[in-house]
């Protein structure tokens, strides 16, 4: 019961920080000219992919390191495609990164990350992805 309450508190904390962070990012992006906003959102996507690099540096297990490096490569490719080809790639990158966050469930990928980070990053990613899809039409 207590553990469930703690987990819910972690999830709620992550969710709130994710929404606040995403709203702040979206506000800054919408104040910029579209090409500059695209560059900003592309760098942010790559940056959040590399946060997992920091996690595996602390974690140290080789299997997790290779899994995370694979995802970092894929996310960077989507961030650059979003910048050079079409912004929809960027939206796809944020959506895919949100799914990647969700895969770090206790029964999924075992990299050590703070509990609240998963709901935070998933919320952040999907709100920003939604913004790109709506805003870039």
């Amino acid at each position, binding site marked *: 019961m207590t553990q469930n309450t703690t987990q819910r508190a972690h999830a709620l904390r992550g969710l709130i920080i994710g929404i606040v962070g995403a709203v702040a990012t979206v506000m800054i992006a919408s104040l910029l000219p579209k090409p500059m906003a695209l560059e900003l959102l592309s760098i942010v996507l790559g940056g959040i992919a*590399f946060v997992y690099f920091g996690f595996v540096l*602390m974690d140290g297990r080789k299997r997790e390191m290779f899994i995370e490096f694979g995802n970092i490569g894929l996310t960077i490719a989507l961030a650059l495609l979003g910048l050079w080809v079409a912004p929809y790639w960027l939206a796809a990158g944020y959506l895919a990164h949100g799914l990647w966050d969700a895969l770090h469930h206790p029964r999924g990928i075992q990299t050590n990350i703070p509990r609240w980070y998963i709901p935070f990053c998933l919320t952040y990613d999907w709100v920003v992805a939604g913004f790109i899809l709506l805003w870039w039409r």
Partner: protein
Amino acid sequence: MSTEQNKTISDPLLDPRKMNMVQRPWARGTIVAIIGAIASAYILTLLPKPFARDILVALVGYFGGVYMGLGLSTDSAKKAALEYAVSGAFFGLSLAGLWLSPWFLALACFAHAAWDAAHHPKALDIFVRPWYVPTCVVYDILMGTFVLLWWWR
């Protein structure tokens, strides 16, 4: 001392004194960084400069993300706050490199090397893998030099 302990200590991969040069984390890290930097620089010279700059900008911004991850993983609130601040600074430098001048990208590479070095156990003492600091310091210095030489050629 038990047989198991003897076996563990005599393993050259676990006892740094018995490692040859290439097995040592700093030596391996340096070799990987030199190869990585040469490969990165070569690929960048094949691209049109605006594309190459986008990649360098992204790289600098992404490097900031690593410190965000390290900050999120550390137990010390003070060290975490420091990592977040530095992460934000690198993100700012990457945007300055894109919107103002590529000088900021070279500056970011050198600053990043200095910050990597600060993760030494005798300095900040934020735990990272032994190979990470030498790899990243060497890679950053080589890439910073490359940006300085190549962009204004």
